[in-house]
């Protein structure tokens, strides 16, 4: 199974290392043709405005948007969450949505500037009893979400790990810790999506 890592800018290396530690081939994705043959994609942390702009220029934004509407699994961390969101707020007003597949409203940098960036431990029932160490870096905050969105993890009552269909998103960076559980969770989602697709194409 191959899960690509969007390699426009940001902490690409850390995500690839996590996937490789799970025994998953993790090629870099910089152009639309790099999506071919992938079972899923991770969008790393970075600057969402930079990544979105460069994805748009190369046609990658449109190509990925089409796949997402067809059920392609994508996990977005931090900037990746912003790129997936249907609605994006900034300090000086709303931004246009980039991929618009995930029914959430996020506010950029809403956990504060870098001096307020932090680490914490939160429970995520899906991942077992051991809490998850979460690293928030100028992180986006989920202000609201639609009924189709499932909240997997929260910090003080606010969603920080959410999923909807084949999409997964977190405000924080599991790739900056040694905990592989969220990447494994996403890889399982990708596997299930592949199996479902195989059943569907096999027909009745």
């Amino acid at each position, binding site marked *: 199974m191959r899960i690509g890592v969007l*390699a*426009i*800018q*940001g*902490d*690409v*290396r*850390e995500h690839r290392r996590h996937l490789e530690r799970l025994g998953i081939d993790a090629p870099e994705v*910089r152009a639309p043709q790099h999506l071919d043959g992938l079972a899923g994609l991770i969008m790393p*942390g*970075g*600057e969402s*405005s*930079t990544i979105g*702009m*460069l994805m748009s*220029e190369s046609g990658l934004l449109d190509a990925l948007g089409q796949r997402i509407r067809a059920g392609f699994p994508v996990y977005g961390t*931090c*900037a990746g969450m912003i790129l997936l969101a249907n609605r994006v707020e*900034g*300090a000086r007003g709303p931004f246009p949505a980039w991929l618009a597949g995930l029914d959430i409203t996020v506010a*950029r*940098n809403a956990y504060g*500037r*870098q*001096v*307020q*960036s*932090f*680490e*914490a*431990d*939160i429970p995520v029932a899906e991942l077992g009893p051991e809490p998850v160490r979460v*690293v*928030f*870096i*100028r992180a986006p905050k989920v202000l609201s979400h639609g009924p189709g969105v499932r909240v997997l993890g*929260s*910090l*003080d*009552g606010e969603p920080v790990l959410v999923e909807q269909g084949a999409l997964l998103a977190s405000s924080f*960076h599991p790739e*900056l*810790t040694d905990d592989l559980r969220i990447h494994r969770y996403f890889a399982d989602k990708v596997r299930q999506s592949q199996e479902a697709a195989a059943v569907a194409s096999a027909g009745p």
Partner: protein
Amino acid sequence: MATDTQRHQGTAGVKIGLAEMLKGGVIMDVTTPEQAQIAEQAGAVAVMALERVPADIRAAGGVARMADPGIVKAINAAVEIPVMAKARIGHFVEAQVLQALEVDYIDESEVLTPADEQYHIDKWDFNVPFVCGARNLGEALRRIAEGAAMIRTKGEPGTGNVVEAVRHLRTVLGEIRRVTAAPSEELGTLAKEFGAPLELVRRVKEMGRLPVVHFVAGGIATPADAALMMQLGADGIFVGSGIFKSQNPAAMARAIVRATLHYNDPAIIAEVSESLGQAMPGLEMSTLAQSDRMQERGW
């Protein structure tokens, strides 16, 4: 409402983490909120808030200090991307002021006039992360030992001449190769030669690179310069005077961002380099007096 979860701020993970998010990107010097927005729209991953770009600091002479807090605040308010600002080497009160202004990164920088000729700032003392300049591996590891969460090789600021940036990057990468090739019993002697802590030299051997993100700075003036530094092995690019001293800053900024992403694709570098107008005027190194070389500041 659930009880407040304990939040650990200013950890090494959080400080180094922001630098990881900047990788593959371009950080641009700006002196006004308008320039900061031009940089953001061109795809900069962060801006460096300054009163004057290095070329103007060089031309003006005299003592160069931290920017006016008013400029830093205005730039902070103008963009969503991270804002960095420079403090003088050793001037920990300028750094305290910049932390109070909530800049996202402090550059303890040789572009400003050093405030202390013996000691750099104790950067562990701060919640805000620091980036520092270096010309070789020993200098880089000494800054990391003092708490720097990101390194930029120095180059020669304000010259538009990439030669020193290339020299410093090649020096650091060459010395890293020496460390990785050395058997463990030789690391102590290498640490002594470099004037660097043994523990960090061991980390370099384990990781095969600097233990923190490694950008380049000082003389990058064109898209091809940026791509050159990326092909040589930089994690990302600082452009000081190269954007807003060029004839068409918005176009130059966008072109350097695209060349940094597509650094391995000469056809795209050619395309983005076309019809950009004049790059900033450059300076030949031999015309600089020793005392005018900013890279000699810091140790």
